[in-house]
């Protein structure tokens, strides 16, 4: 049995060698290659998200006790943005808005393009929880006043550059029991995508 197997193998090699040399035809090729990925904190990823102080300067991480960024109300006792030390992801929290009011919060967090190409950036605010949210309450803009939530008119961010995000909340008709938003999605796409060749 063993010997028969050996013979069959031999024949096979001859046949395939001949086919490959003669015609270049092959039935199937399968190749395994290594593929390695590192997942990083929000401050060291290619698209980085960082907490900033009230003046818009990056401050390393903020924590719950950082009083310079804490509004110190019973409903908001932590900075507007901080990196969760367990998940490595930035958490943004604005939890003490007035009802029926327009609130502007400048310098909430920074978006850094730490990749190698320019990107067109825009931001989506959405509500993924139960029931209806009111994500339209939130407007997103850059600290120099450009809308940042219009996917038709994204803001270009060169590689190595950053922008600071302001949030504006219009709570007309919204009360304390109404959900507003729970998800922020940052989109960045190379404006020259597909043109490199």
């Amino acid at each position: 049995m063993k010997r028969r197997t050996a013979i069959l193998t031999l024949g096979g090699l001859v046949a395939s060698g001949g086919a490959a040399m003669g015609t270049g035809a092959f039935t199937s090729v399968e190749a395994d290659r290594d593929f390695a990925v590192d997942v990083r904190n929000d401050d060291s990823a290619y698209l980085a998200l960082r907490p900033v102080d009230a003046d818009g300067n990056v401050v390393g991480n903020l924590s719950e006790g950082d009083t310079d960024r804490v509004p110190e109300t019973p409903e908001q006792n932590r900075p507007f943005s901080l990196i969760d030390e367990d998940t490595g992801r930035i958490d943004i929290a604005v939890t003490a808005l007035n009802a029926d009011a327009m609130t502007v919060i400048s310098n909430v967090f920074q978006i850094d393009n730490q990749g190698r190409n320019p990107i067109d950036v825009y931001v989506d605010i959405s509500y993924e929880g139960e029931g209806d949210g009111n994500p339209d309450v939130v407007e997103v803009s850059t600290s120099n006043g450009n809308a940042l939530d219009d996917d038709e008119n994204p803001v270009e961010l060169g590689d190595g550059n950053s922008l600071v995000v302001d949030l504006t909340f219009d709570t007309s008709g919204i009360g304390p029991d109404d959900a507003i938003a729970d998800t922020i999605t940052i989109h960045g796409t190379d404006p020259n995508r597909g043109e490199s060749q």
Partner: protein
Amino acid sequence: MRRRTLLASLSVAAAGGAIGTGAFTSVEATRTVDVAIADEDKALLALTEMDPQLVNQGTRNRIQISIDEAINENGGQGVGSRSEYVFDEVFGITNQGTQTVYVESEFTETDGQSGISPGFYVATTDDLLLGTDAALVVDPGQTAAVGSYLDVSDVNVDYDDELSVSREFNFDATITAEEEEPSDLRLLNNEGNEVNDGEDGPAV
């Protein structure tokens, strides 16, 4: 796997031979065999680096894809948690054989963690992953630019002000090229456009 395929087809041929020539218990014959492994870029299915920052070349120019380090001086060292990343034109697949082939891919996690789903796609068609949604049709002599897609779910990375912390993931990426057209996948040509099913070769 390649060797396994060859074995299977061979045994069929040998069985036919045996019927034709009568029964025998055992025979042994020795023939000269010339089997050689080509460098990655010269093989029947050539895999070539397109993005030198993400692709390393190992023994025999075997490509290795690494999305795990600084790709410039801007400081980014990897992908973020709960994100989707796409990298166009990471490597090229060239069909150096003589018939059209259908290329698929699949990934096997080799270090046991979970939380990342990688995929390959052609050109900029990152919503149709090869092997899952689509097969890539490559005619003889053609090259297709393949990109890498990463879907990162809730991977938690401890934050440390001092240290650069990361979670590492490693996969075996299996790239398969077959001459048989798959019936259950959409067919894309090397520009990422859909090819009419049932046609010979890609439509333009």
